[in-house]
Each structure stands twice: as C-alpha cells, then as structure tokens.
C-alpha cells in the first residue's frame, strides 16, 4: 500500500494522456456492457429455458398451426407429464413501437408449465373466472401504467373477430412477476377459450406450438422422438426439441449473436491493447532516468516490475470499473428500444468477466514496458536523467 501514491503520481505525470487513455478504456467497457446486455436480450432465453421442457411445433414452419387435438394424444405418450400451448397473437397496443408479446393460453396448464412466473392466488382465481381476463408481466404493466381492472384494447392484423373488428379488449386481472430477473416479464397472456370462440371459424381448434414437460429430463430426447413419431405422416407433422434449442432457433434467425458480439469486442479490446500499451510504453520511456534513481536508492528489479505493472493495471481497472459502472447504470434504466429487447439486463457473470478482462488488459499492456523497466541497468538509466 505504501507504494500506491508513487504509482498514482506516475499516472498523474501527464494528465491529458492519462485522461485520454482512461477515456478509451471507459468507452471500451461501456461498449462491453451494452453488447453483453444486447446478447443477453437476444439469447438470454436459452439460459433460463427449462431443462425438462420440450417445444413441439409444425415440422415445416412455426407459422403453421397445429391441431388442438394433439394435446390429448401427447399426454398419452409415455414420459409426458404436462402439455400446454400458446399461439402467436401479434397484437399492437396503440402504436407498433409499443411491442410486447400477447399469447392465448389455457391458464392452469400454462401456469403449471411455467412455475418461474409468480401470480398471486386471488389473481389466478380472477383469471379463471373472467373469460376476457388477461395477466400481464410487471415490466409491461409499469411501462404503460396498467393496473388490475383496466380494460386494454389490442389490435391484431392476424385475428379478426366475427364482426370484422381487429380490436380485442382484455380485462387485466393479474400482474405477474418472475422468480429470475432473466425471465421476460413483458408478455401478456389471455384465455385460449375466449380466443378460440372469437376468432374466425377457419382457424378454430388450432394452436401455435406446444410445450411439454417430461417426467424425467434425462429421457427428454427419447420423448421428443416419440412425439414426432406419433404425428409422422399426418397433415401436421411435428418437430420437437428442447426449449433451449427452440429459443436458440429464434435468436439464430438474426445470426450468430454470440460470435458477432465477441468479434466486435475482440476488435475493440485489441485496439485498446495498442492504445494503452503505447501510452504505457511512452510513460516508462519518459522516466528511464527516474527508474534508475529508484534502483540506485535500492528498489529491486521485482519492485520496479511490480510498480509498472500495477500502474497499467490501475489504469485499466479504473477505466473498467467506471465503464462497467456507467453501463450498469444506463442498462438499469431498461430496454432502450421500447420493447424489442425485453431481457435487456446486465448479466452478472459478464460483470465478473469484465473485471477479469480489465486486469488482464492491464497485465498485457504493462508487461513489456515493465519488463524493459526491470531490465534497465542502473548506470545506463542514470545517464538518461
């Protein structure tokens, strides 16, 4: 600790250079935070996907509906414990920018399938008692200042009502939370019976996709094969996969998000490596004579190496802490897209990764100048004072 002021005073030698280098580190870590949040928003669902849940969709495309009758047949397949379903409603609340998902579900099966969603018992009862009832996630409720008892009109270009109207009105009977903050709490769920009775006759008795809970996650692959075999050669053949793979499939439609994020960050940190490394090399070169003085006084080669490395680490750790802190604060304000990235949160593990990168960056950028400082011959260094 007694060397800290010495290290700090070296950083303060050229304030402008230190400030600019620090700024570049801050910007890099700000970007790191944002990209981590974007990646989380796009592929984070994979991490929270249930290991015991399978998703069954039409083999050709998810936009093709599956018969409601499949539910009973699936329940008869050995290893299947529970079956629930959802259908894409594709509604718009007031403005297309106000995006959030709304899906019709069968409340009891759906809530059993998703124990990560927390809904008070009295609100669940109200949902079961109200045909036009809907529950909405906390995030969307807060975003639009909805409360229980509100009537919410939602327009959908997909599902016309018998009177030709595209506006469906739902009664908010519950607001749910999630047990894990990585779980999306933006969707609205309403009752499938109301939906099925009201939608056009040609599409009645069909659902978008099924979720299956298997009794034994170790046998999930076997059950998935059995489900697909059950509906083989039917007009609606199925594709059954683990929920994680299903979510990943959605994210993959945008490309390999993780690879894209890593590539951008790789380029940013490589540039930062050059910028910080150059600043450190210059800083050490400038004070060759002073390093000679310290060695003459009795500082060992190891102490000189340690102090120079500590200097570069202090710089990158300070910049990293500020950058990560700023990105944390900004990301905590929520989804900047108005609903397109509902899981826009700073993943805690990435915070630790950021910390490790900051230290590693300090070591890598400082090691060469520190090594050179350590190897300096005292008599030679003093001549350069």
């Amino acid at each position: 600790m007694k060397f800290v002021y010495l290290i700090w005073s070296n950083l303060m030698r050229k304030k402008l250079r230190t400030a600019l280098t620090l700024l570049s580190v801050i910007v890099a870590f700000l970007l790191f935070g944002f990209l981590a949040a974007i990646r989380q928003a796009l592929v984070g669902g994979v991490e929270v996907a249930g290991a015991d849940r399978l998703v069954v969709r039409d083999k050709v495309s998810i936009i093709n509906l599956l018969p409601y009758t499949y539910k009973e047949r699936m329940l008869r397949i050995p290893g299947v414990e529970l079956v629930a379903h959802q259908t894409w409603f594709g509604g718009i609340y007031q403005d297309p920018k106000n995006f959030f998902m709304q899906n019709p579900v069968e409340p009891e099966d759906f809530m059993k399938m998703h124990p990560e969603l927390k809904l008070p018992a009295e609100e669940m009862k109200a949902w079961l008692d109200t045909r036009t009832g809907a529950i909405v996630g906390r995030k969307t409720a807060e975003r639009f200042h909805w409360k229980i008892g509100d009537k919410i009109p939602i327009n959908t270009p997909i599902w016309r009502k018998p009177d030709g109207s595209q506006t469906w009105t739902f009664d908010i009977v519950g607001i749910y939370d999630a047990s894990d903050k990585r779980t999306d709490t933006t969707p609205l769920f309403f009752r499938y019976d109301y939906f099925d009775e009201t939608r056009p006759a040609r599409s009645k008795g069909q659902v978008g996709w099924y979720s299956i809970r298997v009794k034994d996650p170790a046998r999930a692959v076997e059950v998935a094969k059995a489900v697909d075999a059950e509906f083989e050669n039917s007009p609606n053949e199925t594709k059954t996969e683990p929920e994680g793979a299903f979510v990943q499939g959605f994210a993959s439609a945008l490309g390999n998000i993780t690879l894209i994020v890593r590539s951008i960050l790789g380029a940013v940190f490589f540039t930062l490596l050059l910028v910080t490394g150059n600043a450190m090399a210059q800083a050490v070169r400038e004070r060759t004579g002073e390093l000679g003085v310290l060695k003459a006084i009795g500082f060992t080669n190891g102490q000189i190496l340690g102090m120079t490395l500590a200097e570069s680490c202090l710089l990158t750790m300070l910049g990293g802490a500020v950058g990560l802190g700023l990105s944390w604060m900004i990301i905590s304000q929520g989804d900047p897209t108005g609903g397109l990235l509902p899981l826009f949160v700073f993943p805690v593990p990435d915070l630790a990764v950021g910390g490790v990168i900051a230290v590693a960056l300090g070591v890598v950028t400082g090691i060469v100048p520190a090594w050179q400082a350590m190897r300096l011959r005292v008599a030679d260094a003093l001549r350069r004072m």
Partner: protein
Amino acid sequence: MSQNDVLVRVQGVDKVFRRGSEDISVLRDLTLEVPSGQFLALMGPSGSGKSTLLNLIGGLDQPTHGTVTIAGENIASKSSQQLAAWRARHVGFVFQLYNLLPTLTAERNVELPLLLTSLSRAERQKHVEAALGVVGLKHRTRHYTRQLSGGEQQRVGIARAIVTDPTILLCDEPTGDLDRKAGDEILTLLRALNSQGKTIIMVTHDPHASHAAGRTIYLNKGQISDTMPE
C-alpha cells in the same frame, strides 16, 4: 591505516566497457582505500573514470576484474537483488542534476528510500522531517521540485541520501549544476555531515569544491595519479 579503519577497499579493479566490437578500458588495476569518516574528493578530466569508480563503490555496476569491499563485504560478488538491498541499507547517492521525482513533493522524495524499510508511516514521517531539518528545508516539505531553486533541490537530494543514515554518501558532482553561492552551501552541508562522522566520496571537476574535502585523489586514464593531470 589499520585494517579496521578502512571502510572502502578497491583492490586491483579493472573496468572494461564494450562498445560494438571495441573494448574500452575505463579503470585499470585500480587500488584505493578510504577510511571510515573520511571526506574524499575524486578529481580528474572527463573520461578519467571518476563516475565509473563511484558507480562501482556504490554497487551500481560490477568490476570486470578485482574486488570492491565496503565495510568488510565484497560487493562485487553480490547478485543484483542483493546489491539493491545492500544499497538501500548502506549507500546514499547525491547526483549532479538532483534526480528528484518531479511528480512528488520534497517530503515524498525524501521518503522514497524509507519505503524499502519496515518503518510505519508515522516513523517515516519523523525521519523525513529530521532529514529535511538537517538540510534546512523544513519549511519546504510540501513543495514540488519545480517550486524549489537548484540549491534547494540539491538539499532535498541530500536529505533523501541521508534519511536512512547510510554507511557512506556518494556524491557525483553535487555542485556541478549550481552557482557558487548555492554550491558553497551544499559543500558546507556536506562538511557538516562529515564532521558528524559520515564517510563521503565526492566526484568533482571543481578544485574549489575539492578543497572542502579532507583528501583529494586524481584519476587519469583509469588510474590514480599523484597530481592533477594537465
């Protein structure tokens, strides 16, 4: 001179530097003894080997041949790690250009050698104040080097050199960058330290400065000469 009185013994020392393919012999079979408590001035023209000899005595460099013994310890056989620890304990350096760290205040500069000891912060501060008191700069402790005159900077340099109470003080042209008045103040200070028992070896070009020392030896082409070379 008895064996026990000798603090510095340089015996049969050669120092050869290699410049490209050429060997340059700077010190040749040099032998010198400096008793404890002596104030020795080393004079000679540029390139005569004065600073090289000072570097060898201070453990900043190693002789090509021969031995350098300080207080009975042969420092020529020490590793760089051992030499660093030895310098911290036994040697105080005063440089021509003061060599203070410009980013630190006077007191922080003086404190530097104490960072290598196990003293507490309060103890270090006490030593720093005492050293700055000796050089008459107690009132300038919080000033940065750029706020001090050349003479004051050199006095801070001396305070830094004596703060650990080293066995020997090595001064490389300590008045070389100062005007006569400031130079005289530094020489008076060095004499005062010597009168308190401190062994001082000073390299100088200046005959006036050498008069402050109790003994003067001359170096010429890497060897000790009885008289000042032409």
